[in-house]
């Protein structure tokens, strides 16, 4: 902790305003980056959550101050019964539930909203530090969250493109075609870990389909190459890579 900032750690009107404004700014910075990606949680969501978290800690500080001043009589009679971290801890539980509402199962074996939910959670933690006046922690956390959410995303896509383990969703004409597809995949020197047949019969405009979980060979691990090879089979209606 930097001693020069100690005067800002006192609990006064001016520092309360400073901390709340800091919470707005920090929430806004994280939210701005996320909004640019057209994600569910926008700019305002992050700010609101950040304000709420900072307020919860400030409220705790206020209660503690009151117990030592105006309510000191009761404390001397009943004893001090106060847990300064209680409100802050419930904030985390509350946001956990909110986050759970954002995570949706979009398709077979795929969920969406996980990064948004965890981003909100990290923002709330930063908001708690804002309210407590732990400015150094706030700045470091802000920097890290922004780096993780904005700089790491392309890296993650790049990383996933290079992975040898892939999941394919293949639609085909009839169940017997699974054999042919398996052969094509093995011809590319890939190992099949699991085949999960989803639909066995044609219904409406939906075809029989299966999920293939496989590992590409070291020499030839182009994802699009595998997709094209499978697509070239006459019995295959469509092939799609499932990305977690």
């Amino acid at each position, binding site marked *: 902790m930097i001693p020069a900032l100690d005067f800002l750690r006192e609990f006064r009107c001016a520092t309360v305003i400073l901390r709340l404004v800091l919470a707005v700014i920090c929430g806004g910075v994280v939210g701005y980056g996320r909004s640019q990606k057209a994600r569910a949680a926008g700019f305002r969501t992050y700010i609101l959550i950040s304000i709420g978290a900072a307020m919860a800690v400030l409220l705790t500080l206020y209660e503690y101050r009151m117990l030592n001043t105006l309510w000191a009589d009761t404390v001397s009679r009943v004893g001090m019964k106060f847990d300064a971290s209680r409100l802050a801890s419930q904030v985390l539980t509350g946001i956990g539930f909110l986050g759970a509402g*954002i995570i949706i199962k979009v398709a077979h074996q795929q969920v969406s909203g996980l990064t948004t939910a965890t981003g909100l959670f990290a923002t709330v933690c930063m908001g708690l530090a804002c309210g407590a006046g732990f400015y150094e922690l706030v700045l470091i956390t802000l920097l890290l969250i922004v780096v993780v959410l904005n700089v790491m995303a392309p890296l993650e896509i790049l990383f996933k493109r290079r992975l040898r383990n892939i999941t394919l969703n293949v639609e085909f004409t009839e169940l017997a075609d699974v054999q042919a597809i398996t052969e094509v995949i093995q011809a590319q020197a890939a190992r099949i870990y699991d085949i999960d047949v989803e639909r066995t019969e044609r219904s409406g405009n939906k075809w029989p389909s299966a999920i293939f979980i496989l590992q590409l060979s070291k020499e030839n691990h182009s994802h699009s190459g595998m997709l094209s090879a499978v697509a070239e089979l006459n019995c295959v209606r*469509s092939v799609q890579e499932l990305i977690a």
Partner: protein
Amino acid sequence: MLTILNGLRDLSFWAILVRMLVAVLCGTLIGLERSSKNRPAGFRTHILVCLGAAVASITGLYLYLGLELPADISRISGQVVTGLGFIGAGTIIITKKMTIKGLTTAAGLWTTGVIGLAIGSGYYELGVLGTALVLITETGLNRISGTIQPRPEFIVEVLYDERNALDQVLRYCKDNRMSIVNLQIQSMPPEHEADYAANIKLRGKLASQTLVSRIQLMRGIVSAMEI
């Protein structure tokens, strides 16, 4: 903290009445803004949340200060925060297009709850300041939020006959630092103009129109268009 307000920080009848009224007022202000946008949680919802949170926090104080029971004054308040997380999760809707709606409402409702707790504890300054910041965020920053142009993902459908053609397209995308989010290849029926259709989901610096017009010029490509 303002010492003038110290007279209203105890549990006298008038202090409690003032707290309830301030809670209703703050809830109304936040709720009216939401109602004016025709969001699911209107001003009655926000008043009830703010009032309920205030009552819970006053009760917590009463157990300790009034009845002098050995209770932690923040326990009831803490559970309000958790409970509102549940209510917030319930306001989030997943649309048919698999997008999320109601998240700002959920976040606003949750923050309103914390404001109610502050007012109930007699920390009027924090409650009023919080309300002001929420209103600024909801109204003022809404405009900024509207001007943020997300760099969207888009899907390009490419019809082609030969595998090389697709490889060429994907290489072009990579060379131009477009990240391929997903790829789906579909075999077309025999009477169709092309053998395969690939849906490429992309994100990056290049505009979809520029990319599509470049792809159309490539060898072996029957057609390309944005979906």
